[in-house]
C-alpha cells in the first residue's frame, strides 16, 4: 500500500492581535526563536517525517515568505520530482477561502501521486513526527484525523488526498470553505478522529502567545523538545559569523543567534541574527529581531523589536509581560520618544 503523504500548508490565515508583526509579512514569515520563521517548524516537521512534496498556499504579503523559502533548498525540497510548490492567490480575489484556493490549483492535487494528505496551518511551533500519526490514522479507519493538543485543535488534518479533493470540489453544495468548517459541522458525514499530540505544540495567534511562548524557549525542557538533533528545524541560511561578546558583556538566560555584537547586558531575552547591543545597554525580557541596532545606555524591558529597528543612545522602553511594547519594523526609536 502506498502510504505517502502530501504536505499542504495553508498560509492564508490572518491573525488579529498580531497586526504589528504581520503588517508587512505573512503570518508564516513571522520571526521566531532567534533564527527561525514560524513556517520553518511545520515545514521541517514535514520534511523530517519523510514528506517529499509540500504545497504552500499563501494569501497576502507573501514577498517575505517567498524570499525566505526560495527554491526550498534549505529544507532539501529543491527536487526534480516533487519538492516545494508555491501557489499565490489570484490577485483580484481579496477574500479567497482555503478551499477556493485549493480548487483553483486542482491540477496540482491531481498530478500528485501521494495517497494521503496532511493539511496544516503555518503558525504552530512544534517538533512533530507525522509518520506515527499517519499509522494511527490508517489503523483507526477514520476519514479525517484532527491533531490536537490538550483537547484543542492544532488545525492539522490527515485524510486521503482523494477526500480532500472531494471536499473542495463539492464546496459549493456543502458550503465548506476550509477544513475547520468540515470538522466543526456536527452534520458532516465524515468519520472524524482526534489524535492527541503529547509533546510541546503551540499556535502563535496573538502577541501575548507570541511573547510568552518565545520566553518558554528559555526553559531547557522546551528547548530540548523543540530542537532535536535527529529532527532539526531548518531555516534559510544567512552566513553570519559567530556572535561576538565584548569586554563588559553580560548575558544571562538568553537565546542568541549568530552574527550579533554584544557589549551590553542581556537577560531573559531572545536575540536574533546580526543584532548590535551597545555599551551600558540593558535588555530584559525582550525579543529583538534581526539586524536591530541598539545604541549605548538604553534600557529595554518586555519589548518586541521587529526587524531593522534602530534604538538611539539612552532610549528607555518598557512593556509588560501581558502587553509587551511592540516596535514596528525599520523604525527609529529616539531617547525623547516613548520614555
Amino acid at each position: 500500500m502506498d502510504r505517502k503523504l502530501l504536505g499542504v500548508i495553508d498560509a492564508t490565515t490572518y491573525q488579529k492581535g498580531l497586526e504589528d508583526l504581520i503588517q508587512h509579512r505573512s503570518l508564516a514569515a513571522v520571526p521566531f526563536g532567534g533564527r527561525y520563521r514560524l513556517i520553518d517548524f511545520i515545514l521541517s516537521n514535514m520534511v523530517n517525517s519523510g514528506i517529499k512534496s509540500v504545497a504552500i498556499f499563501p494569501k497576502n504579503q507573501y514577498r517575505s515568505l517567498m524570499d525566505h523559502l526560495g527554491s526550498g533548498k534549505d529544507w532539501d525540497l529543491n527536487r526534480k520530482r516533487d519538492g516545494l510548490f508555491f501557489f499565490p492567490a489570484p490577485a483580484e480575489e481579496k477574500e479567497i477561502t482555503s478551499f477556493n484556493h485549493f480548487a483553483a490549483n486542482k491540477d496540482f492535487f491531481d498530478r500528485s501521486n501521494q495517497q494521503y494528505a496532511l493539511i496544516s496551518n503555518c503558525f504552530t511551533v512544534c517538533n512533530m513526527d507525522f509518520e506515527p500519526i499517519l499509522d494511527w490514522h490508517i489503523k483507526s479507519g477514520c476519514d479525517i484525523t484532527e491533531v490536537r493538543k490538550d483537547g484543542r485543535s492544532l488545525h492539522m488534518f490527515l485524510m486521503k488526498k482523494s477526500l480532500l479533493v472531494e471536499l473542495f470540489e463539492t464546496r459549493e453544495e456543502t458550503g465548506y470553505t476550509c477544513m475547520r468548517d468540515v470538522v466543526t459541522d456536527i452534520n458532516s458525514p465524515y468519520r472524524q478522529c482526534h489524535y492527541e499530540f503529547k509533546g510541546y505544540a503551540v499556535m502563535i495567534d496573538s502577541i501575548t502567545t507570541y511573547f510568552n511562548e518565545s520566553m518558554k524557549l528559555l526553559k531547557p525542557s522546551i528547548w530540548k523538545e523543540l530542537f532535536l538533533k535527529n529532527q532539526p528545524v531548518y531555516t534559510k541560511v544567512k552566513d553570519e559569523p559567530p556572535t561576538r561578546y565584548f569586554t563588559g558583556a553580560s548575558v544571562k538566560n538568553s537565546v542568541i543567534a549568530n552574527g550579533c555584537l554584544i557589549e551590553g547586558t542581556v537577560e531573559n531575552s531572545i536575540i536574533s541574527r546580526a543584532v548590535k547591543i551597545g555599551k551600558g545597554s540593558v535588555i530584559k525580557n525582550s525579543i529583538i529581531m534581526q539586524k536591530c541596532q541598539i545604541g549605548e545606555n538604553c534600557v529595554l524591558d518586555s519589548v518586541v523589536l521587529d526587524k531593522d529597528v534602530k534604538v538611539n543612545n539612552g532610549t528607555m522602553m518598557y512593556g509588560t509581560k501581558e502587553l509587551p511594547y511592540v516596535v514596528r519594523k525599520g523604525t527609529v526609536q529616539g531617547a525623547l520618544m516613548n520614555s
Partner: protein
Amino acid sequence: MAKKKCVAMLLAGGQGSRLHSLTSNLAKPAVPFGGKYRIIDFTLSNCTNSGIDTVGVLTQYQPLVLNSYIGIGSAWDLDRKNGGVTVLPPYSESKEMKWYTGTACAIYQNLNYLIQYDPEYVLILSGDHIYKMNYELMLDFHIKRDADATISVIEVPWDEASRFGILNTDSDMKVVEFDEKPANPKNNLASMGIYIFKWSVLKEYLIKDAALPDSSHDFGKDILPTLLSDQKKLFAYPFSGYWKDVGTVRSLWEANMDLLDDTCGLDLFDYTWRIYSVNPNQPPQFISDDALVVDSLINEGCVIEGEVEKSVLFQGVKVEKGALIKESVIMPDAVIGKNVFIEKAIVPSEMVIPDGTIIRALPDADDEIVLVTEDMLQSL
C-alpha cells in the same frame, strides 16, 4: 565548455603534519577555524567575492572530510552550470598511478581541466592560509603590466624574513631575484604562494618542467626561477592586510585569538566580503543563568553554563556549570565537563573533557599552547 578569463587552481592536498592530531584524519585546509569555518573557506570565499567562478580544488591527503565539505560548492555559490568548483584528486593513467609530488606537478596533471576552459589567466592558490584578498585587483595589476607571472607578496617583519621565500624587485615591482629563506635578506617582501600566470606561459613551462627528472616540480623552487632565468616578465603584487599561515598549533591558536582583536585587520563582520561556509544548521546558542561570556566568539548550537573568557567556541559546544575556559579554541561538538579549567588550549572536535579536569601547559613545556589529545586525557 565556455572560455573563461581566469580559472583558479586551489592546492588543498597539504597534510599539515605540524598540526599533529588535528590533521590525523583530515587535510589541513579542512581544519576548523574561527568558530564556524574551515581554513579553505577563506580562499573559496575570496574566489567568489573576487568574481572567480571556476575553481579546481586539488586534493590528495585524507580527502574525505574535505570532499564532502566542498560538495558541489553551493556554500560558496560555486555550484555553477558553467564552471563552479571541481575537486581534482590524483588519478591513475594507463601505465602508472601518479601522486602529486609537487605543487607544479599537481597542476600539470590537471592540464586537461584547464584546457577545457582555455582561460587567459590561471590563478594558483593555496588552501592553507587565513586572509581576505580581492584577486581581481591582482589580476588587473597582472594585465596592466602584461606580466607572464605575478606573485603576491606581503611585507613581513625583518627579523622573520629569513623564514620566507623573499622576492627582490626593482622600483616598478619587477622581480629581479628569488631568495628562498635567505640568511641575510635584502628585502622583506615574502611570497604568499599566490600566483597568476598567463595560461600559455604556464602550460609551456609545466610541460617543460614535467620532463625534467631532477625537478622537484614546485612553483617556488622550479617553475618561477626558470621563468626568471628565461627573462620572462615577473612582477610582485604587494598585498597589505591580514595574512597568516596556520601551519602549527601555535599559529592556529594565534590566528583564532586574532579574531578577538579588533585591530588585527581580519573582520568577519564585514558584509561586503563575507566568509561563506557550510551551514551546520544548529539552533541559536543558549547562555544560562550561571554563565559568563566575555571577549569571545560563540557559534550557534552552543550551550554555555560556565565561564568563557577570550575564547573561540565552534558550533554545538557544551560548557557545563563551574567550568572556566580562558584563551582557548573549542572545536565543534566538544563537551567541557563541570568544573573543568582550560587555559591556552585547543580542544579538538567532539572531545569530551571529564568533570574537574585541569588543562594548561606544564611550567617546563616547549610551548604554552596545549593541543588536547585523547592520550593526554587518558593519562590524567
